[in-house]
């Protein structure tokens, strides 16, 4: 089956006073209908910029989508007119963001804000939009939705606001929902509730979800397939279980080792030496080479491409085909 969304060689950079920073460096991936895909990486690895680039939501200037292709429903979103893209945003591909506290306009009721896109995209009457807004609030697990719909954002808790954002996002029955760190600003119990809600909606509505997070725990529990990003590139792509069982890329290995294990005594947490290279000063070879414990001379020559490694797995490491035990 053809993928719902197909990203090829996406390349986004920012022009700043300090120079040109490449935030997304030739990223390619596919998203199947109804799939729950995770993108994981640390701050600055390009995961948010990747998501924003899909819908061309990068402020330009300073941002610039240099090249690549984002195919959705037979169209290249990167080549679409601004007007045509507006019909896709919210309607076919919706997005929720990290800050539920500020993603709602404080001067309108939540009902008004949910109704906005219903009226714009689906051309519902105000009354019908209002009924639908109440229905949506109910669907995302907000109690007494008929009353909440008249309330202002400051009357809601952070978790409820994020639920409102989700209600807005699914209001026009999109096929894809991009969730950019939707739970980072929330506390842990609420986080689990929101993610459960997302998964329930994903199964109920057949949504494809791209979940961006830096939390490997969230990845392990919720998504079915993962992209691991490092310094603007995808370094590993894998179904979730094999990734946790046997990570292929040294960066993914380091990430997983840095999770504290409950069944193991340890004096101090494992960490990856060094820091992420500055986007203004990328090493010529593999971006992870300066921090890699298994680095070879060849790693410093050119960035390795993603190579197939087993069913549905790819990784960008030159040591990929070596036996697993020597790679450790």
């Amino acid at each position, binding site marked *: 089956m053809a993928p719902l969304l197909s990203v090829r060689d996406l390349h986004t950079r920012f022009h700043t006073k300090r120079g040109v920073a490449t935030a997304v460096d030739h990223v390619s991936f596919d998203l199947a209908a109804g799939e729950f895909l995770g993108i994981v990486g640390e701050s600055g690895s390009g995961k948010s910029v990747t998501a924003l680039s899909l*819908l061309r*939501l990068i402020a330009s*200037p300073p941002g610039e989508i240099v090249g690549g292709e984002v195919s959705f429903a037979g169209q290249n979103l990167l080549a679409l007119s601004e007007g045509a*893209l*507006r*019909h*896709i*945003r*919210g*309607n076919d591909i*919706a*997005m929720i*963001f990290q*800050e539920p506290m*500020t*993603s*709602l*306009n404080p*001067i*309108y009721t939540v009902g008004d804000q949910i109704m*906005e*896109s219903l009226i*714009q*995209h689906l051309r519902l009457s105000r009354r019908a939009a209002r009924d639908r807004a109440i229905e949506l609030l109910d669907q995302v697990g907000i109690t007494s939705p008929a009353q909440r719909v008249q309330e202002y954002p400051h009357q809601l808790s952070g978790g409820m606001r994020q639920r409102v*954002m989700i209600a*807005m*996002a699914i209001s026009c029955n999109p096929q894809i929902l991009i969730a950019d760190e939707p739970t980072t600003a929330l506390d842990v119990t609420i986080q689990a509730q929101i993610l459960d809600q997302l998964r329930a909606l994903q199964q109920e509505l057949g949504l494809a979800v791209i979940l961006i997070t830096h939390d490997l725990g969230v990845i392990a529990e919720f998504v079915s397939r993962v992209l691991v990003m490092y310094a603007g590139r995808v370094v590993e792509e894998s179904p979730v279980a094999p990734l946790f069982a046997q990570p292929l890329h040294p960066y993914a290995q380091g990430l997983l080792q840095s999770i504290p294990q409950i069944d193991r005594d340890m004096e101090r947490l494992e960490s990856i030496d060094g820091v992420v290279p500055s986007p203004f000063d990328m090493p010529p070879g593999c971006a992870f080479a300066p921090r890699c414990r298994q680095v070879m001379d060849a790693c410093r020559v050119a960035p390795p491409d993603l190579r197939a490694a087993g069913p549905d797995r790819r990784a960008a490491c030159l040591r990929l085909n070596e036996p697993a035990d020597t790679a450790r």
Partner: protein
Amino acid sequence: MRRPLFDKRLKMTLGGGIVVAAILMAIFAPLLSPFDPNQQDLLQRLKPPAWSAGAAAGHWLGTDNFGRDLWSRIAFGSRISILVGVSAMLLAGVLGTLLGMVAGYKGGRIEQVIMRFADAQLAFPDFLLAILIVAAIGGSALNLILVLGVSGWMIYARVTFGLTRSLRERPYVEAAVSHGAWDWYIIRRHIFPQLVPVLTVVSTLQVAQMILAETALSFLGLGIPPPAPSWGNMLAEGRDRLFVAPWIANLSGLAIIIVVWGINMLGNGLREHLDPRSGDL
């Protein structure tokens, strides 16, 4: 903390009261004035106000050089001043706010063109510009409104530009964009409503500026052509008789001062009232 002599409540009541009184005066000028403001009575010329010796009966603020009743002229003069002041403010406000919002929202080349144009016009003495234009197209109430409106848009543009720039970066605006909202929709719904408090204050103060500009232009003979009464050309006529009939210039000047003072006080009171940092909103 000591209570200030003029707190915001007093400012708003006093300023608002003066403004309302001035507006009522403009509306009911025919009822308030005992004489036709343009009716000359050469036997009664240059009569002093009622409280001075030699006053003429009926003319309680005295008469001018042509024996016209000064009170009637001040009452009718308020019409011109307020009409021109408010209309010019509205024109400048609509123009400046629109351009400022577009520049702030769109950024890039559009911003550069609009804001550099505003800078250029700010650098140019706007009064000189107004004089040039009125001298070219002639003085009338409509021309005054156009000239003052067009020469005063920059202040609105600057204020709305800065605010729009910061509002555009708000997450809910980004969220609206990601939901496929149109630019115009975002400006109308998410940006303009938040500009209203600031615009209220700026435009109130601007009315006072516009009234002063109108009187100044009329004073220079570039405003409303005589014999129509306007506070500015009454002041100009009074200047010639400053030593024999000081009340003409004094009283029309006083009318200008009171109204402008009232509007400025209202504007400052509003600013304190609408400022969320003032505490007791």
